[in-house]
């Protein structure tokens, strides 16, 4: 490990923290940066820095309908779908995943992550922060989300792209909806939200694209502002005014620099490739994520909830992965949702490899927990008839991980014959985060001060997952 350990120096004032941030922002020439980046891009696809694509499946994907099938379990556990054989001998996944089945040598399945929080809010907080939340319910996280930590650690002034971006549905665009809050790191550390469905025709990133009206007038306005913004800057020694000037410049850059605007513009992608990902919010957020990491984003969170926002959800199906019987007939929902997911995820895997990004980009696909192994039949609220569903189950779940230079085709861990809890290689979400921090070069033993000035380690526990360490680097 090369990261040097900085001794704990105890409480610091938030002001001094702000100063450090502000100082690091001084003296940057945006156009130089953009020039350098263009040059780097022209030289080849290798990214300047490591990055992460984090696909979030809110509600929690059922492990028994996806990567941890239990065909030998009693019928009230195993459900109606069958496992199929895949490219890797011995690895079986759900029959609804034919495209991934051809690619199992290119990703890893983890079957043994678990935790103790069975509420959506608690599960989100537990997963997104790498900490035990103070309250088991509610989505407002009391500790910083991993995304905000990454932002604090990796947002550099010489990168015109936001370090962290999150893609969410329009009606789910609060920072707290998925526990992405920054808590004591301050709101500037929260991810830049890309709101809306990128598969929609009128999709546009808010505050980034200029209105046609502004496009012609921005120069005028900038000139005007320069003429009247005369307050003596030496009044302020806190660095705040300078930081605001720098951010304004960067914002102007984002508004006008084509490179930045282009990063969010999916119409620059070949239609064929977009089709390969699928015309769903899943697929187009997948390709957007890949585009953003190529443009310099370091941690892109893509929330996959409703595959077709704005369209009517089929009868018996539900909005996201929360497949209670009261919400949906979970088998009907799986028949609808899983193929869309399969297409998007398999496209992402192929795309990452075909562009040679598999060393620099680490991809994780996970929800906040798994679903109850035993099927619970209840009357659906919409349908009014008894239908099968599964409830919240943090004791077992499945996730997939690839890229980051790791060996693939592995299955890590195992659950008991009914898929209830890990019996091999028990892991926690924190082990996944340790792996991710290591990939990004973030020393997770570093601390940030909370509101009381107490140094709180980035990750209070957890170790990198040995099987996922880069090989042959």
């Amino acid at each position: 490990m090369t990261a040097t350990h900085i001794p704990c120096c105890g409480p610091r004032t938030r002001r001094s923290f702000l100063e450090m941030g502000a100082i690091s922002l001084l003296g940057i020439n945006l156009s130089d940066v953009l020039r350098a980046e263009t040059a780097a891009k022209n030289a080849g696809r290798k990214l300047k820095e490591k990055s992460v694509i984090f696909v979030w499946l809110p509600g929690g994907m059922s492990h028994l309908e996806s990567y941890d099938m239990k065909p030998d379990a009693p019928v009230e556990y195993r459900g109606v779908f069958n496992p199929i054989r895949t490219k890797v001998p011995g690895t079986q996944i759900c029959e609804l995943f034919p495209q991934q089945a051809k690619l199992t040598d290119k990703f890893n399945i983890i079957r043994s992550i678990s935790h103790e929080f069975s509420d959506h809010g608690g599960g989100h907080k537990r997963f997104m922060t790498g900490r035990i939340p103070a309250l088991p319910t509610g989505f407002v996280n009391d500790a910083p989300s991993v995304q905000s930590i990454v932002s604090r650690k990796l947002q550099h002034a010489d990168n015109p792209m936001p370090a962290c971006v999150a893609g969410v549905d329009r009606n789910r665009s609060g920072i707290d909806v998925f526990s992405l809050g920054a808590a004591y790191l301050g709101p500037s550390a929260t991810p830049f939200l890309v709101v809306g469905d990128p598969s929609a025709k009128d999709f546009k990133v808010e505050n980034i694209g200029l209105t046609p009206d502004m496009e012609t007038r921005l120069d005028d306005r900038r000139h005007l502002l320069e003429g009247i913004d005369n307050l003596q800057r030496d009044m302020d020694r806190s660095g705040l005014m300078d930081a605001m000037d720098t951010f304004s410049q960067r914002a102007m850059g984002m508004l006008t620099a084509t490179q930045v605007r282009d990063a969010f513009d999916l119409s620059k992608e070949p239609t064929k490739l977009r089709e390969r990902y699928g015309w769903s919010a899943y697929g187009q957020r997948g390709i957007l994520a890949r585009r953003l990491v190529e443009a310099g984003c370091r941690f892109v969170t893509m929330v996959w909830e409703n595959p077709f926002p704005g369209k009517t959800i089929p009868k018996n199906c539900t909005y996201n992965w929360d497949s209670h019987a009261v919400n949906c007939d979970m088998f009907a929902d799986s028949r609808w949702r899983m193929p869309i997911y399969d297409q998007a995820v398999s496209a992402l895997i192929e795309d990452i490899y075909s562009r040679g990004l598999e060393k620099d980009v680490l991809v994780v696909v996970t929800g906040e927990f798994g679903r109850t192994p035993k099927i619970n039949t209840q009357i659906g609220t919409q349908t009014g008839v008894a239908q099968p569903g599964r409830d919240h189950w943090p004791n077992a779940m499945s996730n997939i991980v690839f890229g980051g230079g790791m060996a693939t085709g592995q299955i890590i861990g195992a659950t008991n014959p009914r898929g209830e809890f890990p019996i091999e290689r028990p892991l926690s979400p924190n082990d996944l985060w340790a792996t991710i921090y290591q990939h990004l070069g973030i020393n997770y033993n570093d601390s940030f001060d909370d509101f009381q000035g107490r140094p709180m380690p980035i990750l209070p526990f957890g170790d990198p997952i040995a099987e996922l360490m880069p090989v042959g680097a």
Partner: protein
Amino acid sequence: MRTLQLILLTTLLTVMHGLAADAPRPLNFANDIVPILTKGSCNSGGCHGKASGQNGFKLSLLGFEPQEDYEHIVKEARGRRVFPAAPEQSLLLTKGTAQVPHGGGKKLDPKSEEYQDLIRWINEGMPYGSDSDPKMVSISVEPPVMTLPLKGSQQLKVTAHYSDGSTRDVTRRALYEANEKAMAETSETGHVQLFDLPGDVAVMVRYQGKVATFRATIPLGAPVDKLPPVRNYIDDLVNAKLKTIGMPPSDLADDSTFLRRVTLDITGRLPTAAELKDFLAVQDPQKRSAKIDALLDSPEYAEFFANKWSALLRNQRTQPTYARGSYLFWQWIRDSIADNKPYDHFVREVVAASGDLDQHPPVAWYRQVKDMKQQMEDVAQLFLGTRMQCAQCHHHPFEKWSQQDYYSFAAFFSTVSRKASGQKDEELIFHKRGTATATNIRTKANVVPASLGGEPLKLKPEQDPRLQLTEWMSRQDNPFFAHTLVNRYWKHFFNRGLVEPEDDMRETNPPVNPELLNALAADFTKSGYDMKHLIRTIVNSSTYQLSAVPNAFNARDRQNFSRYYPKRLNAEVLYDAVNRLLDVETNFAGQAPGTRAVALPDNSYNQSNYFLTVFGRPDSSSACECERTQEASLAQSLHLLNAADIQTQLARGNGRADVLTKDPRPDDDKITDLYHIALSRDPNAAEVKFATAHIDKKTNGKKDQEAFTAKKEAFEDILWALLNTKEFLFNH
């Protein structure tokens, strides 16, 4: 090589043993070994000191529990960590020196005295020491206070004092930290290097749970011959400091600047154009004092300070049913401030709140702050400027507070009980008759209430301990209570506390002007905790009324108050100011149209407001003022430059730009109006010319509707530019 070392060492030790007269003191684990681990940061919170340890090896945080550390080092891991047969093969040393892979890197130099001490300790059979060994009682630093030149330096000497009267030089093993990193840096060996910033800097010295402070005064040494008029004791004490360090203050601010500043600071809004005109017209030399009194008597003062206190008292609506309570509590806070309720009464009514929401709205505080420990921590931080949190799990690293102090203080809240009141999700808070006790989690002993630094109290079962607590807090000689409030309010007006952060007052974090802090606290106590009196004293001082514009000497001053330090308008104030400038009537759900963002009863009314979120509105989820952030961000800049809602409001029919375009007066007058509204001052000739030139350029050669549209757009551009200026965004 290693063998040679061992031979040499063994020889040395044998020789030393032979010389009985010079025999080294026997090693004591707590006194001699633990400090080495602390200095190497082995037991820090990021490493083996964290609750789960690191890679299977756990140490107590900062070495506060030597007994546990001894167990872990000597007895755990099948004894691999220490190897008496070949001390240098001990895992403790091979890891520490990174001879075998060590995640923490190299922490120990094999040539160092520390390494030799560890070798000797292992060689001697890892003694723990005996109960009769001397215990460390304190540390001292020499020199404690110095006046030093800019870029000067000073070597500190740290001495540990033991219970048997002996002393030892522990300079090498102590830890050093400057409170102002921009002013000084410290080396691992206690050498303080100053930079070229004048003022005061303190260096905290820590050694095994004991602390001492070195304070340096660094004069600039410029001649101070022009001082502003002395309006009250604040000016006396600030001027004295400025003379001592040789830093001439800026001039007094002009009337426009003063009016904008004081109106924003007291009421959280911009002065209106009419107010500005009236104020500038008045010739009375007492007009600033009169304005201050008028502002303090306005309902907007109470609203603005209720906004501040609501956040600190965590007035939240975490559930829809909480709306009634959060409104009642906010209303109580606002009314208390409007009535100028003495601060000690205000605090007592919160801390010792009993009854239901109708009888006594401050019980809402207990709804949000449920846990006894949390209640104590909030009270300590908010009202006593003392952060007790650290002492919950271990001795406070920079303070005298132990876990015993923590739980004794928490015990004041141990009898707080609740039962359902008539209303859904509402409770009745009461003192449950019985003995107040809390359990010290380390000793498992039950402890009774004791104030900070006080003796355990013997209370009768019917006595509500919280009343004892508030009685102690508001005693004239309480060292925390008045100091904390005056420092908090000082910061509100000056953007910098006399102690920073404002709620972290401790011996090792001294105030920049102790005489001033004491004088403010004494005056506040003497006034009967009169909040308006305190504010009046602060804002009537020349110190508050200095210009922010630096002179040749004080541009870099950030702590001596030789000029005003500009601050960005906070989220709600800025939102209201933008709406004022664009002539928009705010509309928050459930509130009367035009209700200011600063006057909202709780934050759930504006939770979905992107502007407020992005500019750092607090969630009222902690008792720390720091939850409200003033930092800049990319999202803020993007929002100000390009947000759809601001663009819409700029272009709106009957909006500010539209109305101005229809206004038949000359453009010069209209530009002047805009400067009055946005910046509370007259524009200078060049500014008027610059703005009218923009209008002329846009409308040049256009006629009728086209000219109207062009002119309206020109006004939109000017409004947009004004709201993006630093002069608008800052109080200066």
